[in-house]
């Protein structure tokens, strides 16, 4: 069930519908197309307009010109040469990679421990992890802020990465996935004399790319889009991440210049959108939701 790809379903359904009489087919499609086109327009117009404005000067924006303007080069200059957006982007890339990779590995390890080991007090440890699902970082962010300051991690990647490297979600995702893998595999591996880590990386990981991919997509987007925490803990602009850094384009230099701001917004949105669209399939198949066990 977990690996049924959307395209197959659609292929089948498409064949089925072709056999139906024309009368029942047409109106249904007509409505659907209308609603979908409307929805695509509504979700697309804001971005499309942002794209337009990213090529415009402020004067053109306020003239409500709905064609590409003449300010792209100038806006590009402002974004990268005056405001050094690339610094923020590099920081965000490091933070995102750090969180995603370390979190995935930690989750794999703890998933392995929960499924392939029986140890005393397992339910307490499990409860310890489970309860954190109900503890969003946001509600303890004030204390976390103080704690990170006590650690003197302010303005470092440690502050941006380390607190987010453990996750109940990831642990459960892998626990769930490993539990669905036939136990014969691990028995066979043990007979071959593989230690748990070898088993994990040689057997489990190759069988878990969909789950890993799903977790990676979620974490990449989550980390890349993080705003509140970097905003609090990073005060040195050279260490700032992109979602906060983009705000510097809003400040100063008089009237808000929309062109550079939109250019930056578009550029910033490209990486997660591309990652997401490319890995959409893994994303969905890794997160199959079933109504029964």
């Amino acid at each position, binding site marked *: 069930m977990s690996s*049924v790809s*959307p395209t197959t379903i659609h292929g089948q359904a*498409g064949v*089925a519908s072709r056999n139906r009489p024309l009368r029942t087919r047409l109106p249904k*499609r007509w409505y*659907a197309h209308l609603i*979908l086109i409307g*929805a*695509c327009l509504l*979700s*697309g117009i*804001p*971005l499309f*307009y*942002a794209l337009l404005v990213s090529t415009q000067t402020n004067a053109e924006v306020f003239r409500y010109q709905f064609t590409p303007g003449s300010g792209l080069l100038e806006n590009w200059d402002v974004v990268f040469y005056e405001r050094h957006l690339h610094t923020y982007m590099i920081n965000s890339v490091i933070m995102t990679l750090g969180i995603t990779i370390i979190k995935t590995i*930690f*989750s794999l*390890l*703890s998933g392995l*421990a929960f499924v392939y*080991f029986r*140890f005393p007090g397992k339910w307490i440890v*499990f409860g*310890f*992890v489970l309860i954190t699902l*109900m503890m*969003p970082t*946001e*509600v*303890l962010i*004030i*204390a976390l802020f*103080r*704690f990170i*300051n006590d650690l003197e991690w302010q303005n470092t990647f440690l502050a941006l990465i380390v*607190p987010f*490297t*453990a996750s109940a979600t990831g642990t459960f*995702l892998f626990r769930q996935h490993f*539990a669905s893998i036939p*136990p014969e595999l*691990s028995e066979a591996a043990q007979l071959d004399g593989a230690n*748990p880590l070898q088993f994990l990386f040689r057997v489990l990981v190759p069988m878990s790319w969909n789950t890993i991919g799903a977790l990676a997509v979620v974490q990449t*987007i989550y980390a890349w889009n993080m*705003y*509140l925490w970097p905003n*609090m803990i990073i005060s040195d602009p050279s260490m700032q991440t992109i*979602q906060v850094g*983009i705000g510097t384009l*809003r400040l100063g230099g008089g009237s808000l210049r929309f062109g550079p*701001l939109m250019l930056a917004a578009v550029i*910033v949105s490209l990486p997660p959108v591309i*990652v997401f*669209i490319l890995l959409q399939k893994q994303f969905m198949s890794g*997160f199959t*939701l*079933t*109504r*029964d*066990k």
Partner: protein
Amino acid sequence: MIVSPVILLLVGAVIGAAALGYVFRRAGRWLLLGLPLGAVAGGFGAILFVAPLGYCTFETEREQLDAIFGFLLVAAGIALVVLPISWVAGRLLRHESLVSTTSQPTQGTFKHWWIALPLLVPTLTILALFLYYPSAETLRLSTMLSRLGARREVSVCVDNFTRLVEDPEYLDIIGRTLYMSFFIVVLSMGLSLLIATMAYLPLRGASIYRILLVWPYAMSPAVAGIIFLLMFNPSGGMVNYLSGNWFGIKLGWLNDPKVAPWTIILASVWKSMGFNILFYIAGLQNVPKDLIEAGAIDGAGVVRRFWHIVWPLLSPTTFFLIVTNVTYAFFETYATIDYLTPGGGPLQSTTTMMYRVIQLGVYNNDMGKAAAQSIVLFMMVIGLTLVLFRTGGRQVTYGV
């Protein structure tokens, strides 16, 4: 002192002993073990929160409200300690397994159970240091008057909480948070379901539609705020220009306290719909085709078929989405608000509870009050999650 700590201890012990005694009696065993265990647990629970405060809520010179709050703390402490112990003891006595969420393979486990420890250490350490410790620290801070960089810290008992009860502005903020969250969740999920039922149909170009519909999920709440700022700002925004030209209406999208929350709601719905559509399409694909076709043969109309066959089958998806959307509406909207109406909007009309916490804790450097409000927010989220789990969570295997 209105009540002496000894009395609290005794009351707690009696309640604890009664509760555990009941559990043990029902199991019909070891009543003599249950009573003292319950007494210790209850006594400990009774003073769990008030002892670190030095029983300050019961000082005679404090207000009545503080004493009431103190008794609530005592009750909460007893419940927090006695209930889990009763639950665990009950299950143990009935020989039931404690964790029953998914089946555990009994074969294929490795020997040397202690190897599991180093595998768990990274996750457990991080969770302990960066989730559990800050939680405890939040509790401590919530009873303090504390500023970063100040010479000293002063304990203020439970003032940070009791003042909230008397603060109409804070009650407004709670109402506003619920109001905005409700509309974000309902609008986003309702529209997504409608669109998903269309996008799931066998249409020409369905995969293109799908990509065009789901990408906003990857946008950040911050960028959503920035793009909506471009369109909705009252000085030169496109929306007012067009609506002014076409209908002669200009709205104060960001500076009218009645409209501003709706701008936030719109931006958040726009950003979160992609995610919901994606999961609803997946959920619809899991609905067996033969069930729908059977309904069609019975002559059930589209709406009836949807309502009686598809909707119940979608409930795990719906439940999962409600949980993630509520979390989104409570926390993630912070960035959208911060870019659209920095400072929290006219008349604080876009100030959510989360936004307020940061305003207080970081910009006003008033960490104690911020911590107290964090705890109120925490209780609300826990409460909502519990309600959701009770009403619909049982069918779902896990959430994200």
